[in-house]
C-alpha cells in the first residue's frame, strides 16, 4: 500500500514521505509515510527484516534513502549525515550497542557533548540514580555485558535532550526493573513534549507506553493508529503473514514422569566466577527454565559449563560422565552445546555465507580432511527449510540477514552437532513474533526428540510458556525452584528479585 502522490505535509514534528531504500538487489523500504507529533510515542513493530532499523538509520542520516523526503516541523531537511540529524535534535539509540570499547562508561556517554565536564558528570549521576541503574562510570566499555552496554546507550540517549528520540529495541536484553524505570522516564519525556520512536518485539510494552502504533511488513506500513484502537490480537494478526496461523506452538501440557527418567545433565554444587553452589539436573525431553535479572550470573554459569571459564568447585555430569573443566571442544563432543547470549560477538560469522555459518560446528565430524561440500549443502538447506530462515540462498552473507534469521541460523549450527543437552541463552533476544513462534516450535521439537533443554531468558513470559520446571537465579545463586504448577509470571518475577516467599504464591488455575 505505497502512497500514490504526495499527501499534504501535516504539522508533524517529523513527517516522512515516500521513503524508499534498497540494498543492492534487496528492496527494504518501499515508500514509507509517517507523521509523529510532539509528545507522541509511536511504537514501531514488525518482523525481523521488516526495515524498522533501516528506516531509523535513514532518519538519523546513517543511510541515504533512494527516494522520499523527511520534514521537520513542516520544512524539508536533507539528512546527509548523522551530524545533521544531531543538529536537529534527533538521537538514535541503536539496536546493537555501538560503544567505544576502550573508553570508560563516562567517556562513552560524554563524548560529543560540549558541556563542562563537571556538570555533565552530575547530570549522568542524576539520571543514573533516577533510573536506579548502577554501572561504575570508570569501567571500560569492553567489560560490560551486552545488557549493560544497552543501559549505557540508553543513558546516553536520554542525556542528549533530543526532541526526537529513537529507541531501537532498547529493552531487548533488559528485565523488569530496568524496563520499569525506563518507562517512567519515557513518561516524563512524553510530558516534556518530546516525540519518541519506540521499536520493540514485546507487544505488552506497546500497550504500556506507546500512544500510537505502526506495523511494518515487507518495507511498508501495513497499519497505524492510536494504540487504544487495537488489541494485542489485532497486532499479532497484523504482524504475521496474512495466512499464517497465530500460534503454531501447541504447549505440551503432559507432565513429565521424572521418576522414570535419568537426568542427562547433573550440576553438583558448581561454583565459578559470577555464580556459586549451583545444583540442578536436566532430564531428557525436559525444558528447564532459568530465570533471573540481568547480572544474575546465568550466562556465566552457562559459559562455564560450556568450558569457557574456570570452575572454582563442584562438578558437572553429562550422562553420568564427569565433564567438569573440559575444554569447549571436548564438551561439544560429549554432546552439550550452547547458543550464546551475544549473537554478534560470539554467534555469527558476519561476512561469511549462511551455509558456512550453519555448517561450521558440524564440519568436524563430517569428514576427515577434505571438505564434504554436498553434506554441507544438504545440512544448510535442511535447516533453512525447517527453520524457515529467510534468505535469498544459502550463500547470502550472514551480516545482511535480519536479527531473527541470524538467530535461527545460529541455533541451526548448535543443533547440527546433534547434542543431548542444549543451553539456550536469551534465544529470542530481538526477535519478532513470527520468528519467535518458529523458535518456540524448534524448542518444542527438541523436547519431543528427547533433547534436554536449558532455557535462559530474561523474557519471563517465554519461560512460563515453554518450561517444565524453572529455577530462578538471584545474585549468582539458585534461590528458588518451581515445578510446572507453580510457574507463573508473578512467582518468577518475585523470585528473581529475591522477594518470593513460599505459601503466598499463585498456583495455576487457582
Amino acid at each position, binding site marked *: 500500500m505505497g502512497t500514490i502522490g504526495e499527501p499534504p505535509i501535516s504539522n508533524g514534528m517529523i513527517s516522512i514521505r515516500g521513503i524508499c531504500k534498497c540494498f543492492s538487489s534487496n528492496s527494504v523500504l518501499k515508500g514509507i509515510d509517517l507523521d509523529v507529533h510532539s509528545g507522541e510515542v509511536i511504537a514501531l513493530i514488525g518482523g525481523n527484516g521488516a526495515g524498522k532499523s533501516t528506516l531509523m538509520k535513514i532518519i*538519523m542520516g*546513517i543511510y541515504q534513502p533512494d527516494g522520499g523526503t523527511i520534514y521537520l516541523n513542516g520544512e524539508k531537511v536533507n539528512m546527509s*549525515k*548523522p*551530524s545533521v*540529524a*544531531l*543538529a536537529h535534535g534527533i538521537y*538514535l539509540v*541503536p539496536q546493537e550497542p*555501538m*560503544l*567505544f*570499547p*576502550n*573508553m570508560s562508561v563516562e*567517556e562513552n556517554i560524554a*563524548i*560529543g557533548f*560540549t558541556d563542562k565536564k563537571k556538570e555533565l558528570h552530575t547530570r549522568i549521576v542524576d539520571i543514573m540514580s533516577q533510573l536506579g541503574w*548502577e*554501572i*561504575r562510570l570508570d569501567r*571500560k566499555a569492553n*567489560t560490560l555485558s551486552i545488557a549493560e552496554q544497552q543501559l549505557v546507550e540508553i543513558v546516553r540517549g536520554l542525556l542528549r535532550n533530543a526532541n526526537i528520540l529513537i529507541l531501537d529495541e532498547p529493552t531487548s536484553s533488559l528485565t523488569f*526493573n530496568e524496563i520499569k524505570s525506563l518507562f517512567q522516564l519515557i513518561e516524563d519525556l512524553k510530558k516534556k513534549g518530546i516525540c519518541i520512536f519506540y521499536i520493540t518485539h514485546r507487544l505488552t510494552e506497546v500497550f504500556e507506553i506507546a500512544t500510537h502504533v505502526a506495523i511494518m511488513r515487507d518495507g511498508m506500513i501495513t497499519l497505524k493508529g492510536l494504540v487504544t484502537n487495537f488489541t494485542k490480537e489485532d497486532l499479532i494478526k497484523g504482524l504475521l503473514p496474512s495466512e499464517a496461523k497465530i500460534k503454531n506452538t501447541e504447549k505440551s501440557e503432559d507432565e513429565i514422569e521424572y521418576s522414570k527418567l535419568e537426568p542427562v545433565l547433573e550440576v553438583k554444587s558448581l561454583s565459578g*566466577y*559470577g*555464580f*556459586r553452589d549451583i545444583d540442578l539436573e536436566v532430564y531428557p525431553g525436559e525444558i528447564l527454565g532459568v530465570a533471573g*535479572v*540481568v*547480572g*544474575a*550470573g546465568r550466562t*556465566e554459569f552457562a559459559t562455564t559449563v560450556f568450558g569457557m571459564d574456570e570452575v572454582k568447585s563442584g562438578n558437572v555430569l553429562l550422562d553420568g560422565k564427569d565433564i567438569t573443566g573440559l575444554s569447549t571442544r571436548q564438551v561439544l563432543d560429549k554432546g552439550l552445546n550452547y547458543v550464546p547470549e551475544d549473537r554478534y560477538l560470539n554467534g555469527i560469522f558476519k561476512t561469511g555465507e549462511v551455509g558456512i555459518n550453519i555448517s561450521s560446528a558440524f564440519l568436524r565430524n563430517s569428514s576427515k580432511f577434505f571438505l564434504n561440500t554436498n553434506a554441507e549443502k544438504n545440512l544448510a538447506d535442511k535447516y533453512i527449510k525447517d527453520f524457515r530462515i529467510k534468505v535469498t540462498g544459502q550463500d547470502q552473507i550472514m551480516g545482511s540477514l535480519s536479527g531473527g534469521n541470524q538467530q535461527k541460523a545460529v541455533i541451526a549450527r548448535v543443533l547440527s552437532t546433534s547434542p543431548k543437552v542444549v543451553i539456550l541463552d536469551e534465544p529470542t533476544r530481538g526477535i519478532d513474533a513470527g520468528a519467535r513462534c518458529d523458535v518456540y516450535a524448534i524448542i518444542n521439537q527438541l523436547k519431543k526428540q528427547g533433547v534436554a533443554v536449558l532455557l535462559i531468558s530474561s523474557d519471563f513470559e517465554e519461560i512460563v510458556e515453554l518450561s517444565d520446571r524453572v529455577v530462578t537465579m*538471584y*545474585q*549468582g*545463586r539458585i*534461590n528458588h525452584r518451581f515445578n510446572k504448577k507453580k510457574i507463573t509470571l508473578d512467582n518468577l518475577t518475585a523470585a528473581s*528479585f*529475591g522477594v518470593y516467599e513460599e505459601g503466598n504464591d499463585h498456583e495455576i488455575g487457582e
Partner: protein
Amino acid sequence: MKLVNRIFKAREISSLAFLIAMFLIVGAVNPAFLQTKNLFLTFNGSVVYILMAVGIAFVILSGEIDVSIGATLGLSAAVSATLLRNGSSWGIAIAAAVAVGVIIGVINGIGVTVFKVPSIIMTLGVNGVVRGSIYVYTNGKWVENVPFDFKSLSQATFMGTLTYFLLGVIVLTAVVHLILSKTKRGKYFAAVGDNVSGATLIGIPVEGTKVAAYITSGIFAALAGLMYVSRVGFVTPTAGNGYEMKAIAACVLGGISLTGGVGTVIGAAIGSVIMSSISRVLVFLQFSSDYDNTITGILLIVIVVADSLIQRRLAEKARRKRLSARTLEEVGGGSNE
C-alpha cells in the same frame, strides 16, 4: 591502591619504567653511559624518531597505518636540503618541506577515506612512489654542502646541554598530548579508531578525522626531515629507509595499540627514545653490532608480550572480582553490580 592500578594501566608509565631500567643496567655495566653529556646526546639524538612516532601515532590511534613516512622524510629532506644548498631562505626550505608532508598526507588520506583503499596498501604504494621520486628529484646523487648555519642549528643548545630541537620536540609532544586528551576534536582520533560506526552515530566526521591524521603524520615526517638535514648535513636518496617500521615499533613500545583507539603520544615519544637508544646501548655494552637487530627484536617482543599478559591479567582479575562480588553480596541487596 586505585592509584597503583591507574599507574599500571597507564601504559606509558611502564614503558618509561623500562626505559629507566634499561639505562640503569647499561650504566651499571659501563658508567660512561650515564654521564649527563651522553644522556643528553642520547635524547638529542632521538628527536627525529620522536617526531616520526608522534606523527604516526595520530594515524595509528585512528585505526589506520602509514608506512610512507620514511619516504616522506627522505623527500622533504632532499627538497629542503637542495633549496638550502642553492641558497634559498630557511623559510622557503621549511615551507617546501612541510608542503611535501601535507601533499603526501592528503593523498594518503583521500585514498584511504574516499577510495577506501586499505591503509597498508595505500601507504605502501605511496611509499614506493615517493621513494622513487626522491631518485628522480636528486638524480640519485647525494645532496651535500648544506649551509653551515642551518647545520649548526641542530647544535644550538639551551643552557648548554639541551638542544633547541629537543626542547621544541618535548614541548610539541606535550601540546599534542593535551590536544588529544583534553579537546573535543582531539578525542575524535582515538574515538574513530575505537569504533567507527559508533563514531559515525554520534556525528563525528570520520573521514575528515582520518585525513587530518594522515596530514599530521605527513607534516611531522616533514619536520623530522628538516631536523634530519640539520643534524646530518647531507641527504642520501635512501634517507629515512625503514624509519617507518622503527616509528611503528616505537609507538607499540609506548603502548599504542595497532588496532586503534588506545595509547598516548607521550608513550610514542618514550618508545622512540628506547628504539633510538638501542644502537647506542650496544656500543656501551661492548656487544658486536651484529646483534643490533637480534636485541631490538627480542626487546620488542619481550616488552610487548609481557605487557599484554599483564594487561590481560589485570582485566581478567577485575572481571572476576566484579563477578564474584555479585555472588557474595548479602541476599536482599537488590543491585546487580
